[in-house]
């Protein structure tokens, strides 16, 4: 069973957030900078799915941070601070999308509900084989270094692959895997069903895995 690291073990949920909010209220610039650096890339990636251009997405993110700051007194700690920030982002992005005549209800607007396998069928043995459906070209074990030692190239490639995922997959993978939100939080934020969330996550992750596999295979060659 996978356990994600959404709350540091041992700390009461929300107490770290309460400290962050207090530091922001006190005008602590380094707290703000840290939060901005941690959340903004995902915020941009999510906003891009709702508005017509990168420029507008950047405006949405700026507007969101201002709304966060001016709305700090309304943060009640019922969700995590991150989830609260992404909730504001989605409200701003949706209303901006409407204004830009690009109203996009997350659950239905993108014609990206691909079906079909996430792994190239050519990698499996065909019907008629002694073991149909079993690996013909199995993946080989990786020996990836610790995250801090990962090469710039591998990260650059993975980021590029993440940026070109279909918007709904990109949004879900960003929120779940880059930010570490849990499934319930992501479903609530985006207004999607758990099963749909898992499909989007699976398809996105499978594409990113393939990019890493290609990279590892080239590195071996």
């Amino acid at each position, binding site marked *: 069973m996978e356990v994600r690291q959404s709350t540091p073990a041992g700390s009461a949920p929300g107490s770290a957030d309460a400290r962050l909010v207090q530091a922001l209220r006190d005008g602590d610039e380094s707290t703000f900078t840290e939060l901005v650096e*941690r959340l903004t890339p995902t915020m941009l990636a999510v906003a891009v799915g709702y508005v017509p251009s990168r420029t507008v997405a950047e405006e949405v993110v700026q507007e969101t941070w201002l709304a966060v*700051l001016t709305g700090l007194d309304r943060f009640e700690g019922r969700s995590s601070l991150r989830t609260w920030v992404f909730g504001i982002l989605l409200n701003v992005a949706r209303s901006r999308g409407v204004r830009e005549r690009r109203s996009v209800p997350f659950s239905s607007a993108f014609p990206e509900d691909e079906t079909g396998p996430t792994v190239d069928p050519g990698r499996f043995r065909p019907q008629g084989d002694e073991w149909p459906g079993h690996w013909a070209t199995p993946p080989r074990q990786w020996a*990836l270094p610790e*995250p801090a030692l990962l090469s710039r190239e591998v*990260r650059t490639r993975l980021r590029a692959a993440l940026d070109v995922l279909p918007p709904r997959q990109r949004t879900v993978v960003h929120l779940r895997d880059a930010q570490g939100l849990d499934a319930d939080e992501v479903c609530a934020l985006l207004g999607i069903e758990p099963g749909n969330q898992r499909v989007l996550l699976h398809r996105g992750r499978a594409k990113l895995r393939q990019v*890493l596999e290609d990279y590892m295979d080239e590195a071996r060659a």
Partner: protein
Amino acid sequence: MTRGLEIDCDELVEVVTDYLEGTLDADTRRRFAEHLELCDGCDAYVEQMRETVRVTGTLAEDDLRPDMRDKLLAAFRGWKAGTTPSP
């Protein structure tokens, strides 16, 4: 001899995320686990999906453009100047 092979590899790779999320029903979960014990290819695949999640987790802090950070910081300073309560 079907033990562990009640799921084909091409089926297993499509339910990896359900497995990692803990949402497989008990029977499928058992067949999945039995298959993994016998199949190096699928074992590698599942591990690679975990690695992919781990590496994606290192991307959050990358690549915030300096001009974006400066704009946000300027906004923060403006907000602070406008709202700092007197002690």
